[in-house]
Protein backbone atom coordinates (compact mmCIF):
# COMPACT_ATOMS: atom_id res chain seq x y z
CA UNK A 1 0.00 0.00 0.00
CA UNK A 2 1.41 3.38 -0.92
CA UNK A 3 2.26 5.54 2.04
CA UNK A 4 0.63 8.91 2.56
CA UNK A 5 3.97 10.67 2.52
CA UNK A 6 7.26 10.08 0.77
CA UNK A 7 10.94 10.47 1.48
CA UNK A 8 12.48 12.31 -1.45
CA UNK A 9 16.03 11.76 -0.24
CA UNK A 10 15.53 8.03 -0.47
CA UNK A 11 13.67 8.13 -3.78
CA UNK A 12 16.46 10.23 -5.26
CA UNK A 13 18.74 7.24 -5.02
CA UNK A 14 16.70 5.49 -7.70
CA UNK A 15 17.60 8.25 -10.16
CA UNK A 16 21.21 7.88 -11.29
CA UNK A 17 21.32 11.24 -13.05
CA UNK A 18 20.38 13.12 -9.89
CA UNK A 19 23.63 11.98 -8.34
CA UNK A 20 25.78 13.77 -10.88
CA UNK A 21 27.48 17.12 -10.60
CA UNK A 22 27.53 19.98 -13.09
CA UNK A 23 29.55 23.13 -13.82
CA UNK A 24 32.73 21.97 -12.23
CA UNK A 25 31.62 19.88 -9.31
CA UNK A 26 28.41 21.60 -8.24
CA UNK A 27 25.73 19.30 -6.92
CA UNK A 28 22.87 19.13 -9.42
CA UNK A 29 19.57 20.64 -8.27
CA UNK A 30 17.08 19.61 -10.94
CA UNK A 31 14.06 21.90 -11.00
CA UNK A 32 13.05 21.36 -14.63
CA UNK A 33 10.82 18.28 -14.42
CA UNK A 34 8.02 20.25 -16.05
CA UNK A 35 10.08 20.12 -19.24
CA UNK A 36 11.13 16.51 -18.77
CA UNK A 37 11.52 14.28 -15.74
CA UNK A 38 14.44 12.08 -14.76
CA UNK A 39 14.12 8.28 -14.96
CA UNK A 40 14.48 5.75 -12.15
CA UNK A 41 16.61 2.67 -12.68
CA UNK A 42 13.42 0.58 -12.61
CA UNK A 43 12.27 2.17 -15.86
CA UNK A 44 15.63 1.76 -17.55
CA UNK A 45 15.73 -1.88 -16.46
CA UNK A 46 12.26 -2.55 -17.82
CA UNK A 47 13.17 -1.18 -21.24
CA UNK A 48 16.38 -3.12 -21.23
CA UNK A 49 14.63 -6.31 -20.24
CA UNK A 50 12.30 -5.87 -23.18
CA UNK A 51 15.20 -5.48 -25.60
CA UNK A 52 17.31 -8.24 -24.13
CA UNK A 53 14.58 -10.81 -23.74
CA UNK A 54 11.37 -10.10 -25.62
CA UNK A 55 12.11 -7.86 -28.56
CA UNK A 56 10.20 -8.69 -31.75
CA UNK A 57 7.53 -6.98 -33.82
CA UNK A 58 4.30 -7.03 -31.80
CA UNK A 59 1.13 -8.21 -33.52
CA UNK A 60 3.09 -9.39 -36.53
CA UNK A 61 4.78 -12.69 -35.93
CA UNK A 62 3.61 -16.14 -35.03
CA UNK A 63 6.77 -17.08 -33.16
CA UNK A 64 7.34 -17.09 -29.43
CA UNK A 65 9.26 -13.82 -29.29
CA UNK A 66 6.53 -12.03 -31.21
CA UNK A 67 4.00 -13.39 -28.74
CA UNK A 68 6.05 -12.12 -25.84
CA UNK A 69 6.53 -8.72 -27.42
CA UNK A 70 2.79 -8.47 -28.05
CA UNK A 71 2.10 -9.43 -24.46
CA UNK A 72 4.57 -6.87 -23.14
CA UNK A 73 3.14 -4.11 -25.32
CA UNK A 74 -0.50 -4.95 -24.60
CA UNK A 75 0.33 -5.41 -20.93
CA UNK A 76 1.67 -1.86 -20.91
CA UNK A 77 -1.62 -0.67 -22.37
CA UNK A 78 -3.49 -2.31 -19.50
CA UNK A 79 -1.26 -0.60 -16.95
CA UNK A 80 -1.85 2.82 -18.49
CA UNK A 81 -5.59 2.21 -18.71
CA UNK A 82 -5.97 1.23 -15.10
CA UNK A 83 -3.79 4.17 -14.01
CA UNK A 84 -6.26 6.67 -15.49
CA UNK A 85 -9.44 4.71 -14.85
CA UNK A 86 -10.00 3.81 -18.50
CA UNK A 87 -10.79 0.72 -20.55
CA UNK A 88 -7.78 -0.92 -22.15
CA UNK A 89 -9.08 -0.46 -25.69
CA UNK A 90 -9.35 3.28 -25.05
CA UNK A 91 -5.59 3.78 -24.68
CA UNK A 92 -3.58 4.69 -27.78
CA UNK A 93 0.20 4.85 -27.72
CA UNK A 94 1.61 7.83 -29.59
CA UNK A 95 5.09 9.31 -29.57
CA UNK A 96 4.12 12.28 -27.40
CA UNK A 97 1.31 14.48 -26.17
CA UNK A 98 2.08 16.65 -29.18
CA UNK A 99 1.29 13.76 -31.51
CA UNK A 100 -1.81 12.89 -29.47
CA UNK A 101 -3.20 16.40 -29.83
CA UNK A 102 -2.33 16.55 -33.53
CA UNK A 103 -3.99 13.17 -34.03
CA UNK A 104 -7.21 14.58 -32.59
CA UNK A 105 -7.04 17.82 -34.56
CA UNK A 106 -6.32 16.03 -37.83
CA UNK A 107 -8.86 13.28 -37.36
CA UNK A 108 -11.61 15.69 -36.32
CA UNK A 109 -11.02 17.77 -39.44
CA UNK A 110 -10.77 14.89 -41.92
CA UNK A 111 -13.55 14.25 -44.41
CA UNK A 112 -14.91 11.36 -42.32
CA UNK A 113 -14.77 13.32 -39.05
CA UNK A 114 -17.72 12.85 -36.71
CA UNK A 115 -17.87 16.66 -36.70
CA UNK A 116 -19.33 18.01 -39.91
CA UNK A 117 -17.94 21.54 -39.89
CA UNK A 118 -20.31 24.38 -40.71
CA UNK A 119 -19.54 28.05 -41.30
CA UNK A 120 -19.31 29.93 -38.02
CA UNK A 121 -18.32 26.89 -35.98
CA UNK A 122 -16.01 27.54 -33.08
CA UNK A 123 -13.17 25.83 -31.24
CA UNK A 124 -12.69 27.08 -27.72
CA UNK A 125 -9.25 27.13 -26.10
CA UNK A 126 -7.76 29.22 -23.31
CA UNK A 127 -5.11 31.92 -23.24
CA UNK A 128 -2.85 29.69 -21.16
CA UNK A 129 -2.37 26.83 -23.64
CA UNK A 130 0.98 25.31 -24.50
CA UNK A 131 1.79 25.64 -28.21
CA UNK A 132 1.05 21.92 -28.53
CA UNK A 133 -2.58 22.66 -27.68
CA UNK A 134 -2.77 25.83 -29.74
CA UNK A 135 -1.06 25.47 -33.10
CA UNK A 136 -2.78 22.19 -34.08
CA UNK A 137 -6.09 24.04 -33.66
CA UNK A 138 -4.86 27.02 -35.66
CA UNK A 139 -4.11 24.52 -38.41
CA UNK A 140 -7.53 22.90 -37.99
CA UNK A 141 -9.05 26.33 -38.27
CA UNK A 142 -7.28 26.85 -41.62
CA UNK A 143 -8.66 23.53 -42.87
CA UNK A 144 -12.23 23.87 -41.59
CA UNK A 145 -12.83 27.61 -41.36
CA UNK A 146 -13.65 27.22 -37.67
CA UNK A 147 -13.05 30.27 -35.48
CA UNK A 148 -10.76 29.96 -32.52
CA UNK A 149 -11.97 31.56 -29.33
CA UNK A 150 -10.14 31.83 -26.05
CA UNK A 151 -11.13 31.80 -22.41
CA UNK A 152 -9.17 34.73 -20.96
CA UNK A 153 -6.86 34.54 -17.99
CA UNK A 154 -7.18 36.81 -14.94
CA UNK A 155 -4.31 38.75 -13.42
CA UNK A 156 -4.09 35.99 -10.81
CA UNK A 157 -3.53 33.45 -13.56
CA UNK A 158 -6.92 31.75 -13.27
CA UNK A 159 -9.33 31.19 -16.13
CA UNK A 160 -11.73 34.13 -16.28
CA UNK A 161 -15.13 32.46 -16.48
CA UNK A 162 -17.16 35.67 -16.42
CA UNK A 163 -18.31 35.26 -20.02
CA UNK A 164 -18.20 31.49 -20.14
CA UNK A 165 -21.87 31.27 -21.08
CA UNK A 166 -21.27 33.16 -24.29
CA UNK A 167 -17.88 31.59 -24.95
CA UNK A 168 -19.43 28.15 -24.78
CA UNK A 169 -22.37 28.34 -27.15
CA UNK A 170 -24.22 26.30 -29.74
CA UNK A 171 -21.46 26.96 -32.29
CA UNK A 172 -18.78 25.44 -30.04
CA UNK A 173 -17.76 22.09 -31.54
CA UNK A 174 -14.60 21.46 -29.53
CA UNK A 175 -13.34 22.66 -26.17
CA UNK A 176 -9.67 21.88 -25.63
CA UNK A 177 -7.72 23.09 -22.62
CA UNK A 178 -4.98 22.26 -20.21
CA UNK A 179 -5.65 20.55 -16.91
CA UNK A 180 -2.74 22.32 -15.20
CA UNK A 181 -0.77 25.24 -16.61
CA UNK A 182 2.89 24.52 -17.33
CA UNK A 183 3.70 28.16 -16.60
CA UNK A 184 1.41 29.36 -13.82
CA UNK A 185 0.64 26.16 -11.98
CA UNK A 186 -3.07 26.94 -12.28
CA UNK A 187 -5.35 23.90 -12.04
CA UNK A 188 -8.45 24.36 -14.14
CA UNK A 189 -12.03 23.31 -13.24
CA UNK A 190 -12.23 20.44 -15.70
CA UNK A 191 -15.56 18.93 -14.74
CA UNK A 192 -17.40 22.22 -14.74
CA UNK A 193 -16.07 23.24 -18.15
CA UNK A 194 -16.61 19.76 -19.59
CA UNK A 195 -20.23 19.71 -18.44
CA UNK A 196 -20.91 23.14 -19.94
CA UNK A 197 -19.33 22.07 -23.23
CA UNK A 198 -21.21 18.80 -23.32
CA UNK A 199 -24.47 20.67 -22.77
CA UNK A 200 -23.95 22.29 -26.20
CA UNK A 201 -22.76 19.04 -27.79
CA UNK A 202 -19.07 19.91 -28.01
CA UNK A 203 -16.23 17.39 -27.79
CA UNK A 204 -13.97 17.99 -24.78
CA UNK A 205 -10.22 17.47 -25.10
CA UNK A 206 -7.88 17.72 -22.12
CA UNK A 207 -4.14 18.39 -22.21
CA UNK A 208 -3.09 16.44 -19.13
CA UNK A 209 0.69 16.78 -19.60
CA UNK A 210 1.09 18.61 -16.33
CA UNK A 211 -1.51 16.73 -14.28
CA UNK A 212 -1.22 12.99 -14.94
CA UNK A 213 2.43 12.91 -13.75
CA UNK A 214 1.59 14.67 -10.51
CA UNK A 215 -1.81 13.63 -9.20
CA UNK A 216 -4.35 10.82 -9.44
CA UNK A 217 -6.42 11.38 -12.57
CA UNK A 218 -9.62 9.49 -13.36
CA UNK A 219 -10.95 10.11 -16.84
CA UNK A 220 -14.48 9.16 -15.93
CA UNK A 221 -14.66 11.51 -12.98
CA UNK A 222 -13.32 14.34 -15.13
CA UNK A 223 -16.19 13.86 -17.58
CA UNK A 224 -14.06 14.50 -20.68
CA UNK A 225 -13.89 12.84 -24.11
CA UNK A 226 -10.22 12.78 -25.06
CA UNK A 227 -7.01 13.30 -23.11
CA UNK A 228 -3.33 13.61 -24.04
CA UNK A 229 -0.15 13.22 -22.02
CA UNK A 230 3.55 12.41 -22.46
CA UNK A 231 5.58 9.61 -20.91
CA UNK A 232 8.83 11.53 -20.52
CA UNK A 233 7.31 13.96 -18.03
CA UNK A 234 6.22 11.13 -15.71
CA UNK A 235 9.47 9.17 -15.23
CA UNK A 236 8.97 7.32 -18.50
CA UNK A 237 11.18 7.13 -21.58
CA UNK A 238 11.25 9.74 -24.30
CA UNK A 239 9.36 8.83 -27.46
CA UNK A 240 6.07 7.71 -25.95
CA UNK A 241 2.81 9.53 -25.30
CA UNK A 242 -0.78 8.57 -24.77
CA UNK A 243 -4.08 9.52 -26.25
CA UNK A 244 -7.03 8.35 -24.24
CA UNK A 245 -10.53 8.61 -25.65
CA UNK A 246 -13.99 7.35 -24.78
CA UNK A 247 -14.42 4.30 -26.95
CA UNK A 248 -17.50 5.67 -28.73
CA UNK A 249 -15.60 8.81 -29.68
CA UNK A 250 -12.53 6.93 -30.86
CA UNK A 251 -14.69 4.57 -32.85
CA UNK A 252 -16.29 7.48 -34.65
CA UNK A 253 -12.94 9.03 -35.59
CA UNK A 254 -11.08 8.26 -38.84
CA UNK A 255 -7.43 7.22 -38.61
CA UNK A 256 -4.58 9.72 -38.61
CA UNK A 257 -1.31 7.93 -39.41
CA UNK A 258 -1.95 5.07 -41.82
CA UNK A 259 0.13 2.03 -42.73
CA UNK A 260 0.69 -1.46 -41.37
CA UNK A 261 -1.26 -3.05 -38.50
CA UNK A 262 -4.19 -0.63 -38.55
CA UNK A 263 -6.17 -2.11 -41.37
CA UNK A 264 -8.75 -4.82 -41.95
CA UNK A 265 -8.59 -5.33 -45.70
CA UNK A 266 -6.37 -3.58 -48.21
CA UNK A 267 -6.53 -3.44 -51.97
CA UNK A 268 -4.49 -1.18 -54.22
CA UNK A 269 -7.37 1.27 -54.27
CA UNK A 270 -8.64 1.34 -50.72
CA UNK A 271 -8.48 0.03 -47.20
CA UNK A 272 -10.84 -0.56 -44.30
CA UNK A 273 -9.67 0.27 -40.81
CA UNK A 274 -9.39 -1.72 -37.61
CA UNK A 275 -11.18 -0.78 -34.45
CA UNK A 276 -9.41 1.45 -31.90
CA UNK A 277 -6.80 1.36 -30.50
CA UNK A 278 -5.17 -0.34 -33.51
CA UNK A 279 -6.76 2.08 -35.94
CA UNK A 280 -4.54 4.81 -34.51
CA UNK A 281 -1.28 2.85 -34.18
CA UNK A 282 0.11 2.39 -37.67
CA UNK A 283 3.49 0.71 -38.03
CA UNK A 284 5.71 -1.21 -35.67
CA UNK A 285 4.94 0.55 -32.39
CA UNK A 286 7.25 2.10 -29.78
CA UNK A 287 7.14 -1.13 -27.80
CA UNK A 288 10.12 -0.64 -25.51
CA UNK A 289 8.96 2.87 -24.64
CA UNK A 290 5.44 1.67 -23.83
CA UNK A 291 6.95 -0.98 -21.57
CA UNK A 292 9.13 1.69 -19.95
CA UNK A 293 6.12 3.91 -19.40
CA UNK A 294 4.27 1.05 -17.70
CA UNK A 295 7.25 0.61 -15.37
CA UNK A 296 7.19 4.34 -14.64
CA UNK A 297 3.52 4.09 -13.73
CA UNK A 298 4.32 1.14 -11.49
CA UNK A 299 6.93 3.25 -9.76
CA UNK A 300 4.56 6.19 -9.32
CA UNK A 301 1.87 3.90 -7.95
CA UNK A 302 4.27 2.33 -5.49
CA UNK A 303 5.14 5.76 -4.16
CA UNK A 304 1.48 6.75 -4.32
CA UNK A 305 -0.03 9.56 -6.37
CA UNK A 306 -1.54 11.22 -3.32
CA UNK A 307 1.78 11.25 -1.52
CA UNK A 308 3.38 12.74 -4.63
CA UNK A 309 0.76 15.47 -4.93
CA UNK A 310 1.06 16.33 -1.26
CA UNK A 311 4.86 16.41 -1.40
CA UNK A 312 4.89 18.77 -4.38
CA UNK A 313 2.32 21.02 -2.78
CA UNK A 314 4.57 21.20 0.25
CA UNK A 315 7.55 22.21 -1.79
CA UNK A 316 5.76 24.77 -3.91
CA UNK A 317 4.01 26.32 -0.92
CA UNK A 318 7.30 26.71 0.86
CA UNK A 319 8.98 28.13 -2.25
CA UNK A 320 6.23 30.68 -2.77
CA UNK A 321 6.31 31.73 0.87
CA UNK A 322 10.04 32.37 0.66
CA UNK A 323 9.93 34.10 -2.72
CA UNK A 324 7.25 36.45 -1.50
CA UNK A 325 9.50 37.77 1.25
CA UNK A 326 12.20 38.65 -1.29
CA UNK A 327 12.27 42.24 -2.49
CA UNK A 328 12.05 42.54 -6.26
CA UNK A 329 10.66 39.05 -6.82
CA UNK A 330 7.16 38.53 -8.24
CA UNK A 331 5.46 35.14 -8.40
CA UNK A 332 3.03 34.61 -11.28
CA UNK A 333 -0.09 32.49 -11.00
CA UNK A 334 -2.53 31.64 -8.27
CA UNK A 335 -1.63 31.36 -4.60
CA UNK A 336 -3.18 27.92 -4.29
CA UNK A 337 -4.37 25.24 -4.49
CA UNK A 338 -2.08 24.91 -7.48
CA UNK A 339 0.20 22.61 -9.42
CA UNK A 340 3.95 22.50 -9.12
CA UNK A 341 4.95 24.90 -11.93
CA UNK A 342 6.33 28.07 -10.39
CA UNK A 343 7.08 31.06 -12.62
CA UNK A 344 8.58 34.22 -11.25
CA UNK A 345 10.15 37.51 -12.30
CA UNK A 346 13.14 39.21 -10.72
CA UNK A 347 13.12 42.99 -11.11
CA UNK A 348 15.89 44.30 -13.31
CA UNK A 349 17.24 40.89 -14.26
CA UNK A 350 16.17 39.13 -17.41
CA UNK A 351 15.12 35.49 -16.87
CA UNK A 352 17.99 34.33 -19.06
CA UNK A 353 20.39 35.98 -16.69
CA UNK A 354 18.63 34.61 -13.63
CA UNK A 355 18.83 31.16 -15.18
CA UNK A 356 22.50 31.61 -15.95
CA UNK A 357 23.38 32.45 -12.37
CA UNK A 358 21.31 29.52 -11.09
CA UNK A 359 22.98 27.22 -13.61
CA UNK A 360 26.34 28.38 -12.36
CA UNK A 361 25.23 27.12 -8.94
CA UNK A 362 24.14 23.77 -10.42
CA UNK A 363 20.45 24.64 -10.30
CA UNK A 364 18.56 23.67 -13.47
CA UNK A 365 15.46 25.78 -14.13
CA UNK A 366 13.80 26.78 -17.35
CA UNK A 367 13.76 30.30 -18.73
CA UNK A 368 11.87 31.66 -21.72
CA UNK A 369 8.29 31.58 -22.90
CA UNK A 370 7.77 27.91 -22.00
CA UNK A 371 6.01 27.29 -25.31
CA UNK A 372 3.17 29.49 -24.10
CA UNK A 373 4.04 32.69 -25.89
CA UNK A 374 0.51 34.14 -25.97
CA UNK A 375 0.32 33.75 -22.20
CA UNK A 376 3.56 35.69 -21.84
CA UNK A 377 2.02 38.51 -23.89
CA UNK A 378 -1.04 38.38 -21.66
CA UNK A 379 1.23 39.14 -18.70
CA UNK A 380 3.24 41.69 -20.65
CA UNK A 381 6.53 39.83 -20.31
CA UNK A 382 8.86 38.24 -22.83
CA UNK A 383 9.88 35.42 -20.56
CA UNK A 384 9.85 34.08 -17.00
CA UNK A 385 12.07 31.91 -14.88
CA UNK A 386 10.32 28.66 -13.99
CA UNK A 387 11.06 26.06 -11.35
CA UNK A 388 9.10 22.81 -11.40
CA UNK A 389 9.07 20.17 -8.70
CA UNK A 390 8.66 16.42 -8.65
CA UNK A 391 8.74 13.55 -6.21
CA UNK A 392 12.55 13.53 -6.00
CA UNK A 393 12.89 17.19 -5.05
CA UNK A 394 13.63 18.17 -1.45
CA UNK A 395 13.25 21.21 0.76
CA UNK A 396 16.99 21.59 0.39
CA UNK A 397 16.42 22.07 -3.36
CA UNK A 398 14.02 24.90 -2.54
CA UNK A 399 16.61 26.49 -0.29
CA UNK A 400 19.19 26.29 -3.07
CA UNK A 401 16.79 27.99 -5.44
CA UNK A 402 16.20 30.86 -3.03
CA UNK A 403 19.92 31.39 -2.40
CA UNK A 404 20.56 31.24 -6.12
CA UNK A 405 18.10 34.00 -6.79
CA UNK A 406 19.69 36.07 -4.06
CA UNK A 407 23.07 35.54 -5.68
CA UNK A 408 21.67 36.73 -9.00
CA UNK A 409 20.40 39.90 -7.38
CA UNK A 410 23.80 40.51 -5.83
CA UNK A 411 25.65 39.72 -9.03
CA UNK A 412 23.58 42.12 -11.11
CA UNK A 413 23.54 44.69 -8.32
CA UNK A 414 19.80 44.81 -7.95
CA UNK A 415 19.62 43.67 -4.34
CA UNK A 416 18.70 46.58 -2.12
Amino acid at each position, binding site marked *: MPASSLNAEILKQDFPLLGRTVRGGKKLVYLDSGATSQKPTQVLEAERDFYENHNAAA*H*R*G*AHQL*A*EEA*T*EAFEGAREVVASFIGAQTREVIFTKSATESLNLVAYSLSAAESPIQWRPGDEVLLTEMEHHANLIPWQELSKRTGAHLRFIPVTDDGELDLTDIDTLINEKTRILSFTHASNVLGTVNPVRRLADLAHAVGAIVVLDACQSVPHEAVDVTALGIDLMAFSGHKMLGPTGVGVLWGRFEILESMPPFLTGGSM*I*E*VVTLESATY*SLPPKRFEAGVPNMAQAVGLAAAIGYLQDVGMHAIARHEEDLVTSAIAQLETMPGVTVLGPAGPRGGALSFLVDGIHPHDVGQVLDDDGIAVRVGHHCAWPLMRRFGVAATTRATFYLYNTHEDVTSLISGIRRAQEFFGTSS
Partner: protein
Amino acid sequence: MNLEKMYQEIILDHYKHPQFKNLAPMVSGGVEVHHINPTCGDEVTLRAQVVDGVIESVTWDGLGCSISQASTSVMAGLAQGATVENALELTAQFLLLMQGKGVSTDADEILEDGIAFAGVAQYPARVKCALLGWMALKDAITREPGEINE
Protein backbone atom coordinates in the same frame (compact mmCIF):
# COMPACT_ATOMS: atom_id res chain seq x y z
CA MET B 1 3.43 -27.94 -25.15
CA ASN B 2 4.74 -29.39 -28.33
CA LEU B 3 3.67 -29.61 -31.91
CA GLU B 4 1.89 -32.95 -31.53
CA LYS B 5 -0.18 -31.65 -28.63
CA MET B 6 -1.30 -28.64 -30.58
CA TYR B 7 -2.04 -30.37 -33.84
CA GLN B 8 -4.17 -33.18 -32.41
CA GLU B 9 -5.11 -36.00 -34.77
CA ILE B 10 -8.68 -34.68 -34.80
CA ILE B 11 -7.47 -31.33 -36.09
CA LEU B 12 -5.34 -32.82 -38.84
CA ASP B 13 -8.26 -35.09 -39.81
CA HIS B 14 -10.69 -32.21 -40.14
CA TYR B 15 -8.05 -30.22 -42.01
CA LYS B 16 -7.55 -32.99 -44.55
CA HIS B 17 -11.27 -33.82 -44.77
CA PRO B 18 -13.14 -30.62 -44.02
CA GLN B 19 -16.87 -31.06 -43.47
CA PHE B 20 -19.61 -28.99 -45.07
CA LYS B 21 -16.94 -27.17 -47.08
CA ASN B 22 -19.17 -26.82 -50.04
CA LEU B 23 -21.36 -23.75 -50.27
CA ALA B 24 -25.04 -24.67 -50.64
CA PRO B 25 -26.87 -22.50 -53.17
CA MET B 26 -28.31 -19.36 -51.59
CA VAL B 27 -31.99 -19.85 -50.94
CA SER B 28 -34.47 -17.24 -49.84
CA GLY B 29 -34.19 -16.64 -46.13
CA GLY B 30 -30.55 -17.67 -46.17
CA VAL B 31 -27.69 -15.52 -44.87
CA GLU B 32 -24.19 -15.24 -46.27
CA VAL B 33 -21.26 -13.70 -44.47
CA HIS B 34 -17.65 -13.25 -45.46
CA HIS B 35 -14.97 -12.91 -42.77
CA ILE B 36 -11.28 -12.14 -43.08
CA ASN B 37 -8.47 -12.44 -40.60
CA PRO B 38 -6.67 -9.15 -41.18
CA THR B 39 -3.36 -10.27 -39.73
CA CYS B 40 -2.91 -13.12 -42.19
CA GLY B 41 -5.45 -12.73 -44.95
CA ASP B 42 -7.29 -16.00 -44.29
CA GLU B 43 -10.91 -15.91 -45.38
CA VAL B 44 -14.14 -17.78 -44.89
CA THR B 45 -17.49 -17.47 -46.64
CA LEU B 46 -20.35 -19.00 -44.71
CA ARG B 47 -23.97 -19.58 -45.61
CA ALA B 48 -26.57 -20.38 -42.99
CA GLN B 49 -30.26 -21.16 -43.18
CA VAL B 50 -32.17 -20.49 -39.97
CA VAL B 51 -35.81 -21.48 -39.67
CA ASP B 52 -37.78 -20.79 -36.49
CA GLY B 53 -34.67 -20.46 -34.39
CA VAL B 54 -33.10 -23.64 -35.70
CA ILE B 55 -30.04 -23.73 -37.92
CA GLU B 56 -31.17 -25.95 -40.77
CA SER B 57 -27.88 -25.80 -42.62
CA VAL B 58 -24.39 -24.30 -42.46
CA THR B 59 -22.00 -24.57 -45.39
CA TRP B 60 -18.78 -22.75 -46.02
CA ASP B 61 -15.80 -22.22 -48.23
CA GLY B 62 -12.48 -20.63 -47.42
CA LEU B 63 -8.76 -20.35 -47.60
CA GLY B 64 -6.60 -20.76 -44.58
CA CYS B 65 -4.31 -22.66 -42.36
CA SER B 66 -4.95 -26.07 -40.80
CA ILE B 67 -6.30 -24.52 -37.63
CA SER B 68 -8.82 -22.22 -39.29
CA GLN B 69 -9.95 -24.91 -41.74
CA ALA B 70 -10.29 -27.61 -39.11
CA SER B 71 -12.05 -25.42 -36.61
CA THR B 72 -14.53 -24.20 -39.22
CA SER B 73 -15.17 -27.81 -40.17
CA VAL B 74 -15.79 -28.77 -36.52
CA MET B 75 -18.00 -25.75 -36.05
CA ALA B 76 -20.10 -26.60 -39.10
CA GLY B 77 -20.63 -30.13 -37.83
CA LEU B 78 -21.77 -28.91 -34.42
CA ALA B 79 -24.02 -26.20 -35.77
CA GLN B 80 -26.09 -28.28 -38.16
CA GLY B 81 -29.53 -28.64 -36.68
CA ALA B 82 -28.70 -26.79 -33.47
CA THR B 83 -30.92 -24.04 -32.16
CA VAL B 84 -29.52 -20.54 -32.52
CA GLU B 85 -29.45 -20.35 -28.76
CA ASN B 86 -27.39 -23.51 -28.45
CA ALA B 87 -25.06 -22.49 -31.21
CA LEU B 88 -24.38 -19.18 -29.49
CA GLU B 89 -23.69 -21.01 -26.26
CA LEU B 90 -21.30 -23.33 -28.09
CA THR B 91 -19.57 -20.33 -29.60
CA ALA B 92 -19.21 -18.76 -26.17
CA GLN B 93 -17.72 -21.99 -24.81
CA PHE B 94 -15.30 -22.22 -27.69
CA LEU B 95 -14.25 -18.61 -27.14
CA LEU B 96 -13.56 -19.33 -23.48
CA LEU B 97 -11.53 -22.36 -24.47
CA MET B 98 -9.47 -20.21 -26.84
CA GLN B 99 -8.93 -17.51 -24.24
CA GLY B 100 -7.54 -20.19 -21.98
CA LYS B 101 -10.00 -19.10 -19.33
CA GLY B 102 -11.25 -22.56 -18.52
CA VAL B 103 -14.53 -23.92 -19.71
CA SER B 104 -17.59 -25.37 -18.03
CA THR B 105 -17.12 -28.88 -16.72
CA ASP B 106 -19.17 -30.47 -19.44
CA ALA B 107 -17.33 -28.57 -22.17
CA ASP B 108 -15.84 -31.61 -23.79
CA GLU B 109 -19.27 -33.10 -23.99
CA ILE B 110 -20.84 -30.14 -25.73
CA LEU B 111 -17.83 -29.03 -27.78
CA GLU B 112 -17.09 -32.61 -28.89
CA ASP B 113 -14.22 -32.47 -31.43
CA GLY B 114 -13.88 -28.78 -30.62
CA ILE B 115 -12.11 -29.60 -27.38
CA ALA B 116 -9.14 -30.73 -29.45
CA PHE B 117 -8.33 -27.07 -29.99
CA ALA B 118 -7.50 -26.48 -26.32
CA GLY B 119 -3.79 -26.47 -27.15
CA VAL B 120 -4.21 -23.58 -29.58
CA ALA B 121 -4.89 -21.29 -26.65
CA GLN B 122 -1.18 -21.57 -25.84
CA TYR B 123 -0.35 -19.82 -29.12
CA PRO B 124 -2.00 -16.39 -29.04
CA ALA B 125 -1.20 -15.73 -32.69
CA ARG B 126 -3.22 -18.79 -33.72
CA VAL B 127 -6.30 -18.08 -31.63
CA LYS B 128 -7.66 -15.81 -34.35
CA CYS B 129 -7.30 -18.70 -36.82
CA ALA B 130 -9.36 -21.00 -34.63
CA LEU B 131 -12.03 -18.35 -34.17
CA LEU B 132 -12.45 -17.32 -37.79
CA GLY B 133 -15.25 -19.74 -38.66
CA TRP B 134 -16.96 -19.43 -35.29
CA MET B 135 -17.15 -15.66 -35.53
CA ALA B 136 -18.61 -16.03 -39.02
CA LEU B 137 -21.26 -18.37 -37.59
CA LYS B 138 -22.13 -15.99 -34.79
CA ASP B 139 -22.41 -13.13 -37.24
CA ALA B 140 -24.59 -15.13 -39.64
CA ILE B 141 -27.10 -16.46 -37.13
CA THR B 142 -27.63 -13.10 -35.43
CA ARG B 143 -28.50 -11.31 -38.66
CA GLU B 144 -31.75 -10.80 -40.41
CA PRO B 145 -32.33 -13.43 -43.10
CA GLY B 146 -31.55 -12.33 -46.63
CA GLU B 147 -28.62 -10.17 -45.68
CA ILE B 148 -25.42 -10.62 -47.61
CA ASN B 149 -22.41 -9.08 -46.01
CA GLU B 150 -19.20 -8.50 -47.85
